[in-house]
């Protein structure tokens, strides 16, 4: 299955939920609306996307949104496993609670905890939402957002 066929398949599969489908490098990115994400996820799982490779969030301070992406693939169907499908949705930056997809994919368990600690986004419905890697005091600072700046040194020595 080529990447365009995969994109078409996903577009047909999520028909009414799709906001935008973008084909990247070895990656099909599907944008849905936040309120539809659980339904979309269930449909994706039925279609054979049986595990989450990673859950990530990207902060866009200029647009004022945060994108949350679930990268999906399949272990049980070989034809789906060639490329990765990103199921994403955007939320405003000041919103901090989104539905958890733990109920759909158990493999999202630790990944959602990681997004929670990095961005301060609470996944409603996650049974055990605690920071995974960071100390709680550091997780409070939402370090993966773009307004947390890590300064690099200049190349000149003082």
């Amino acid at each position: 299955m080529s990447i365009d066929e995969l994109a078409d398949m996903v577009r047909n599969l999520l028909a009414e939920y799709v906001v935008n489908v973008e084909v990247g490098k070895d990656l099909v990115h599907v944008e849905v609306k936040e309120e539809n994400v659980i339904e979309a996820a269930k449909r994706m799982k039925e279609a054979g996307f049986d595990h989450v490779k990673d859950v990530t969030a990207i902060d866009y301070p200029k647009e004022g949104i945060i994108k949350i992406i679930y990268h999906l693939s399949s272990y049980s169907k070989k034809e789906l496993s060639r490329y990765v499908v990103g199921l994403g949705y955007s939320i405003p930056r000041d919103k901090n609670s989104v539905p958890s997809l733990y109920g759909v994919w158990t493999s999202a368990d630790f990944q959602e905890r990681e997004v929670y600690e990095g961005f301060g986004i609470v996944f409603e419905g996650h049974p055990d939402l605690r920071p995974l890697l960071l100390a709680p005091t550091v997780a409070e600072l939402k370090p993966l957002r773009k307004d947390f700046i890590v300064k690099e040194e200049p190349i000149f020595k003082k």
Partner: protein
Amino acid sequence: MSARISGISGKVGFNDLKQLPGFWTRKLGKDLYEVFIGPQHPGSGHMRIIIRVDGDVIVEADPDMGYVHRTMEKLGEGREWIKGIPLYERMAIHDACNVTLPYVEAVEKLLGIEPPLRAKYLRVLLCEINRIAAFLYGFGIFGVFVGHSTMYMWPFGDREVWVELADWLTGARLTHSYPIFGGVRRDAPEGFTDSLRKAIRYMRKRLEEYRKIYVDNPVIRARLEDVGVIPRNLAIELGITGPNLRASGVEYDVRYNAPYEVYDELDFEIPVFQEGDSLARVWQRVEEIKQSLHILEQVADWLDKHKGEQIMHDRFWKTAPPLYKKVFQETGRVKLVPVFALLKVPKGKAYARAETARGEISYYVESNGANKPYRVRIVSASARNAIVFKYILPGHRVMDLPTIYGSIDYFPPEGDR
């Protein structure tokens, strides 16, 4: 490292701390005994597993990672593209080529370049050397977990053979920083493939001795057989990866499902064990070492046939001054054009994965056209395998914890990133 954190300000009192979610205490059931395995514990590595036991049986396990977390994703955002390579390889230094390769590939996808064929073979060469070394490292740790001190020393000693080869090829024992955008940094030196073939034959002989003293040792078999069984459907549901997944009967290997570099041109098998217990996971690794040796033989033959070919993409090599070519002719060292330091990568998103020794590592790379990545999301194999502890440990005995931990081959620095 050179980064300074800005943002932490003021003191945080204990009462403030108690409000934080990480300090939520969870109720301990009646008649349960809570044992903290780690982080300063000989059987845990740099992580903690909080287990609650009822008698000798674990009823709840909570892996507590993050003791060696190095904020690689955040640091990567603030640095130029090329600086990511030495940074990310530090998550698993004995598997350095495998863990950085997908990053290099993702950036190459965004740049729209493809390395020359010889560079691809050299990457595969180092990847497989690293894979064998990392498996041996895992065996060593597993040996000490089961109390088998010989199996601790032997693989660490034999790993030295592969580390020595990698050192000869790249100039560094562990942190090779070998693959680079558009190619690799050094060509295989004279006489390298002969030594490689010797090492392959030596390793085949040693695997038989490992079998005798360890894998087929009745004591070890008793410890491993039917312990930590991950059934096929649970393995898929938990999204675990690597040899652990294949030992549960799932035919999934990135080298097979989404081939990268030259893996689709090489002849090798993907062993898939059906049982899913700790012993199957050990056998899985033994078989994978055999396949890696088989791959290395083919790569050595190919490299001998195609000597002196270019190993850097034209984009970075055509404009190189004569001195660069002279150095390459004399020492096999690829000099980098200064543009690497300030490389601008076109806007876009790319996803790249590779099969490391412990499983699949995936990089989601997003660029906004600047000389630094906009976002790099790394999910390493150990980070995905850590979930096993939470879902598989309950129901086992306390003494099964090291066995399962070792057979999963969890490597905390890789999991914490």
